[in-house]
């Protein structure tokens, strides 16, 4: 750990761009391995599957990039997603008899998911900024709370969307425009918007400034608390968006929904080149990170090369390798 923070500046000279190119090279390498191992890897169906299943973690990870860039952390997103999914399903089932099966019910469900995400994010953000509790502790707490709440809502079982609604809602995950499915489109839009906000707005620059040095940022008239709170609110809202795309897939939520999403999202952010202790965020890198993690799973499922017991080990090696490669190119 400590060696990464004391990397001397000399390494910058001999390999100036490795920390930018690293994740892309890893992604290209994985794609080549995939092609070599299985002819179906490049099929439209397989690529659609991989991109669509990356969308949930991807949408969340874009939000996580802002939180981490501003020096924060959010461990609650996986549990939050499960809780919001459960809440949304319950709400839609409840209003179904009075409104009748139709787009209107789905619309209300979507609004509830987004609003719940917004509120949950605001709770995290305000506890961090107003109550002054470390983000790790706050979100560790809310992680447990949301996980318990969804188990309680589901009575230990599974919450399932009413069958009539499932048929109406289904196209949101499985349908699309011109052969590109909705989750991929939404993921792409969120990623592009995130990249623009991070690079070209005051908000993005303030996030990096706060993550880099909070005191200096405060003296530079950055509204530190407001910006920090907003990063959590944004992340919460994006968790809501991810849930909107997730619910139509299987039409259910349980205590097992969204398990370890927070760690996958954080790993993707770090693989992408954002610094865990804040000060710098790279949204497109995060997208690459998400794709790398999904592709590892996909490639392992497409071959018998490695024992399935070792999937986690391979992901772990790649996460560490990606970060090692990047740290050689930065001054930490």
């Amino acid at each position: 750990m400590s060696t990464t923070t004391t990397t001397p500046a000399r390494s910058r000279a001999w390999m100036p761009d490795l920390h930018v190119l690293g994740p892309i090279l890893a992604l290209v390498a994985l794609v080549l391995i995939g092609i070599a191992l299985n002819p179906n890897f490049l099929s439209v169906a397989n690529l659609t599957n991989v991109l669509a299943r990356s969308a949930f973690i991807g949408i969340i990870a874009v939000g996580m990039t802002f939180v981490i860039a501003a020096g924060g952390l959010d461990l609650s997103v996986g549990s939050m997603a499960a809780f919001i999914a459960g809440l949304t399903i319950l709400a839609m089932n409840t209003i179904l008899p009075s409104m009748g099966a139709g787009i209107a019910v789905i619309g209300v469900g979507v609004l509830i998911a987004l609003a719940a995400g917004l509120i949950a994010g605001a709770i995290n953000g305000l506890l961090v900024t107003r109550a002054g509790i470390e983000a790790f502790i706050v979100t560790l707490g809310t992680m447990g709370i949301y996980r318990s709440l969804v188990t309680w809502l589901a009575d230990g079982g599974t919450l399932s969307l009413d069958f009539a609604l499932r048929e109406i809602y289904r196209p949101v995950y499985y349908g699309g425009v011109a052969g590109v499915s909705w989750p991929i489109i939404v993921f792409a839009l969120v990623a592009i918007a995130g990249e623009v906000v991070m690079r070209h707005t005051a908000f993005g620059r303030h996030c990096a400034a706060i993550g880099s040095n909070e005191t200096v940022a405060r003296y530079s008239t950055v509204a530190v608390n407001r910006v920090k709170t907003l990063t959590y609110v944004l992340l919460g809202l994006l968790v809501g968006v991810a849930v909107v795309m997730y619910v139509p897939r299987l039409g259910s939520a349980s205590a097992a929904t969204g398990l370890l999403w927070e760690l996958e999202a954080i790993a993707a952010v770090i693989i992408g080149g954002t610094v865990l202790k804040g000060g710098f965020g790279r949204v497109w890198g995060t997208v690459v990170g998400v794709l790398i993690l999904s592709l590892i799973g996909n490639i392992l499922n497409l071959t018998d090369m490695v024992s399935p017991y070792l999937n986690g080990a391979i992901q772990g090696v790649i996460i560490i390798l990606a970060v090692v490669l990047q740290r050689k190119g930065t001054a930490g």
Partner: protein
Amino acid sequence: MKHLVLTTALAGLALPATAQTIGISIPAATHGWAGALNFHAEETVDRLSEQFEDLDFVLTTTPDPGTQISDLEDMMATRDIDALVVLPFESEPLTGPVARIAEGGTWVTVVDRGLSQEGIEDLYVAGDNESFGRTAGEYFVENLDDGAQIVVIRGLPSTIDNERIEAFEAAIEGSGIEVMAMEHGNFNRDDSFTVMQDYLSRYPEIDAVWATDDDQAVGALAAIEQADRNEEMFVVGGAGMKQMIQRVMEGDEMVPVDVTYPPSMISTAIEMTALGVMNPGLPVSGRFIIASELVTPENAESFYFEDSPY
């Protein structure tokens, strides 16, 4: 044997004076089956406490083996339990702690996951993983032709999973059925959906899927529907989830049968333990193994429980 006699003697002395306390320690509701286990445990506790005034219960649910050991220590130290019903999270780490409790003279009922050492518990109530795998395997042999190609979605890596897979493989041996791939779905719908999607990309022809668990079957079915390959294969899950039993009952061709592994075995264990502590001398010690049954459209109705969350 010695501690058995002691238990009976102690229970006999304690009975007239104070209420009996039964401690129950089970895994938390981290997946569908465990959720149903929690549901049945709570329901049984509520029912028995209402029925018998001098019966107290301590119910704890644990997310990992370490917490379970602490829970057991707390139960012994602060609640002075007379009997323990435990579903060990993992066999190895729980064997020592449960053995110490048994040595202290407390009645011990072990549920489903056996301890690593024999003869510790007074009563063992469990499902039969061997028959679970075999029942599914036999169905595949009867309903698939020589040369049929199937894929398997395994559960969470564990002894239970290994036993099921071994029994299944033994049952299909020599039938000419080829298992093309086995990956873990971790009893999770999302993981199984992903695994099945990748199987579908990888194999142009699949005759059947053994999903080994009903939650995993739900994920697999969604992936098959997405790929529009419903006509090509059938899916066999396992455990007895309400929605799956219903599909069997309705004669769904994609879900022709299910194999039971009832989570309500926890109720059996609690009831028998309660019987034992309230009636010293009543012979309830031994092994009670609940066989896995094949649910078919003909008998599905008797496996369908409307109120269960699972």
